[in-house]
């Protein structure tokens, strides 16, 4: 979609971009993101995430304006239009400053307050600060626009360097704990001060990464590999896989207990994602009640192994796990039956209803004698292997790593199997698939059942790690989490599940300030992904070609055609 095509290119385009960028910052400020993020220092104590967020609008506006003018061969105008965009991007946030100054303690807009004004005005007071904000925004607009004038090589290097510095600054706490094992305490203490990157270190890292990527270290390897014969490439890939496995095995001991716990959670979501990917990505059945199977797995594990539970803990983890999976699969089939004849949106809402019914039932007094009602199931034992208790997150990480690998293996084999092709045929067109002799009932039920099995296994592991489970762990938000991560990673793509889980589950766990805005980000991300990049960040090859085939055909015919895959 290219909005600028319909208009002649002049200062109005720049103005519109600027105001739009500024309005987005106004929005982020009003919902409290700027204030919340400002507690996380990035570089030194003078640059925090809130400030970066509040100038982001101007940079983006300048960038987009610059690119538009460059594309239209108006190189001379790039900088001045970028400046205009940037200046105008500084205007909408002024509303926040005015509101926050006039009514510092609003009961309505709880996040527009003196604190926000302080951040937006760089602590210079309302009047001077407002001017400063506009000037800074203008400068950022110029920088954004100037960026597009750089050569391709410099641009890439600049992005690389900026990313490194920003990521290190963002995750400075976690990076510190990891690096301590390799660099020693004193080096880390110098590198990261006040929970942020040391300014001098930031400059050095920036210079190093910039130089490295400018002189193309590491880029040559890729072309070298591609020139190798295919047999050699296969061998290389095998080596990579083995190296990756070794890395994955060593990971928890490099990163410590807290990050292992995060990795464990990411792993759980990878397992669930693999399952939902089969249902949504392969078979095209949008299931919003996926959390129900997670709950079935968790409760089965809890009821069967907890000594204080309904059965008094008759089984251990390893015996209960297959039963939990079986229960999940069975319910996958049972809940699949009523929805066999439904499509798309109906299916989504009915499965959503299922998820809610399960949650309501889990809370109810009716089933409380068995599954504990609002009290949940308590005292679920951690699994042990040959008498060795897998008590620490590091050990549980291995369990979940194994589970994810098995899930990924099954999913990969299924994708390339006859059944996988049937699923994809069904996803593209049910009627045609049926005409081709595909048994829709069987194919759909298998998708639900296998997906449910993965989720139940994940739930069972979850229960034995947490030891106590409560009904409120099984809300709709889990389903939305899993759905978001497979969409961000790329529907139908297996590496995409891992990427999606790492971004959407791992990152909010590391950045606690983000937690409050987690679902807001997911929601916005779903919309933006569907508008701009429907194939996801790590798409399946065929799907990517499919989704962009039409674009190549009629590039001028903008709008909706971009996502013209299947119906």
């Amino acid at each position, binding site marked *: 979609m290219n909005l600028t095509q319909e208009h002649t290119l002049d200062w109005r385009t720049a103005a519109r971009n600027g105001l739009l960028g500024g309005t987005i910052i106004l929005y982020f400020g009003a919902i409290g993101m700027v204030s919340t993020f400002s507690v996380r220092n990035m570089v030194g104590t003078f640059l925090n995430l809130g400030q970066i967020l509040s100038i982001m609008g101007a940079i983006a506006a300048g960038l987009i304006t610059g690119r538009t003018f460059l594309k239209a061969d108006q190189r001379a105008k790039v900088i001045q239009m970028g400046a205009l965009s940037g200046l105008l991007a500084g205007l909408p946030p002024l509303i926040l400053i005015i509101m926050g100054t006039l009514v510092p303690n609003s009961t309505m807009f709880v996040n527009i307050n003196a604190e926000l004004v302080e951040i937006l005005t760089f602590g210079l007071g309302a009047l001077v600060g407002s001017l400063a904000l506009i000037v800074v925004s203008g400068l950022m607009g110029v920088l954004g626009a100037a960026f597009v004038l750089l050569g391709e090589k410099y641009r890439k290097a600049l992005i690389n360097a900026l990313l490194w510095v920003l990521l290190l600054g963002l995750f400075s706490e976690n990076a510190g704990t990891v690096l301590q094992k390799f660099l020693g305490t004193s080096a880390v203490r110098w590198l990261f001060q006040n929970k942020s990157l040391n300014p001098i270190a930031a400059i050095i890292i920036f210079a190093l990464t910039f130089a490295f990527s400018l002189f193309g270290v590491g880029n040559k390897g890729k072309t070298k590999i591609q020139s190798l014969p295919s047999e050699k490439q296969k061998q290389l890939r095998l080596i990579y896989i083995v190296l990756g496995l070794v890395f994955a095995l060593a990971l928890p001991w490099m990163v410590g207990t807290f990050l292992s716990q995060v990795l464990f959670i990411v792993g759980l979501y990878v397992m669930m994602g693999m399952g939902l990917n089969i249902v949504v990505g392969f078979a095209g059945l949008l299931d919003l009640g996926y959390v129900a199977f997670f709950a079935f797995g968790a409760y089965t594990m809890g009821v069967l192994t907890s000594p204080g539970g309904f059965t008094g803990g008759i089984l251990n983890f390893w015996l209960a796990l297959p039963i939990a999976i079986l229960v999940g699969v069975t319910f996958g089939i049972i809940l699949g039956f009523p929805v066999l004849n439904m499509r798309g949106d109906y299916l989504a809402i009915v499965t959503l209803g299922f998820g809610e019914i399960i949650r309501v039932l889990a809370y109810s007094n009716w089933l409380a004698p068995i599954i504990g009602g609002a009290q949940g199931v308590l005292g679920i034992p951690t699994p042990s292997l040959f008498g060795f208790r897998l008590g620490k997150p590091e050990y549980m990480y291995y369990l979940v790593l194994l589970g994810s690998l098995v899930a990924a293996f099954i999913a990969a084999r299924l994708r390339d199997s006859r059944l996988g092709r049937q699923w994809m045929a069904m996803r593209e067109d049910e009627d045609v698939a049926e005409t081709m002799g595909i048994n829709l009932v069987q194919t759909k039920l298998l998708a639900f059942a296998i997906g449910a099995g993965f989720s139940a296994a994940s739930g069972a592991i979850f229960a034995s790690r947490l030891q106590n489970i409560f009904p409120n762990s099984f809300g709709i938000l889990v389903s939305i989490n899993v759905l978001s991560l497979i969409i961000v990673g790329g529907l139908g793509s297996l590496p995409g599940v891992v990427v999606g889980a790492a971004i959407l589950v791992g990152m909010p766990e590391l950045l606690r300030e983000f937690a409050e805005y987690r679902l807001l980000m997911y929601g916005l991300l*779903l919309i933006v992904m569907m508008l701009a990049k429907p194939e996801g960040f790590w798409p399946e090859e065929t799907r990517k070609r499919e989704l962009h085939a039409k674009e190549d055909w009629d590039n001028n015919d903008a709008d909706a055609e971009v996502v013209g895959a299947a119906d």
Partner: protein
Amino acid sequence: MKINLERLSWVDVFLWVFRVVAIALIIIGIVNTLSSGKYTSEQWGTLIFAGLAQGSIYALIALGYTLVYGILLMINFAHGDIYMAGAFTAVFLADKLATTGFLAVHPWLSLLLLMLLASTISMLLAVLVERIAYRPLRGAPRLVPLITAIGASFAIEYTFRGLYGPGFHSYPDVPPLMGDVNMGTFAVPRVQLVVFFAALVLMVALYYFVERTKMGKAMRAVAEDKEVAMLMGIDIDSVIVITFALGGALAGAAGIFNGLFRPQGVYFFMGFVPGIKAFTAAVLGGIGNIPGAMFGGLLLGIIEALGPNLFLEGLGIPAANQLKDAIAFTVLVLILIFRPQGIFGERLSEKKA
């Protein structure tokens, strides 16, 4: 009717068994409850009126689903949150009106102001969502706008959480709505009657708009066939915008009614469950069908009010009121199995269903 046994698949058998069991359970529950004589007819009457008032709120929200579905054949997943937006914003005005004493002096004018504000906010939001999340994706695979709709739903919820905070806010008491109205042998809270009749007025107004005005005619034409309507010189985009605006305005009004009706207050997640329930109501009456949505809403309200006591207690389930929410969702599943086209709906063609 001759049934060809060879063509009868085991799925159909399962579904038939499911239907029979469902009906049997409902009948057993009702018979057990009624024969136990635990509740008097007055109590049933009270429940029915409560159900009607709640149902009229569902009906108003359901109209938004139905209007949009009728024209775009998509479920506006974010509609429940559009309903929330109006009610959540207007509660601050209500608070102001109550503290300044304006509410006590001009209660009806205040209510009108609140409804206007809530409807405007919901309407603007509905139009905005259409513009950002749905319009660029018109003609995309059906999964795509559905996913953006889910995204929009969560984005709206957490935007309002960020704007107004995560807490609950209660609507102040409106003096003329307090107290009961005597209905012979039993009393009905006055607020329920007012909500019911006010909702009825809005529904009639909508029906009149769609059936009698030129814009309504255009909406019906677009619902029938978009291409032909375009050829007739109808501006499809503006018709769609009007449709979203109408649905949003009704949802905003429903939000105010809900605030008056229920003391526990409004908060950012309040739209989620009523959203699904209203969708159930729309499906119950036949999605795309305006009188159907009204009827479906009222019916669902009554089923939900009577359900826990009438079916579930008869089946011996303790604390049946906890399962109230599950009833609505079960109704949704049952209606989609028994009669997916709804009570008044025509059988949808394969493409639409």
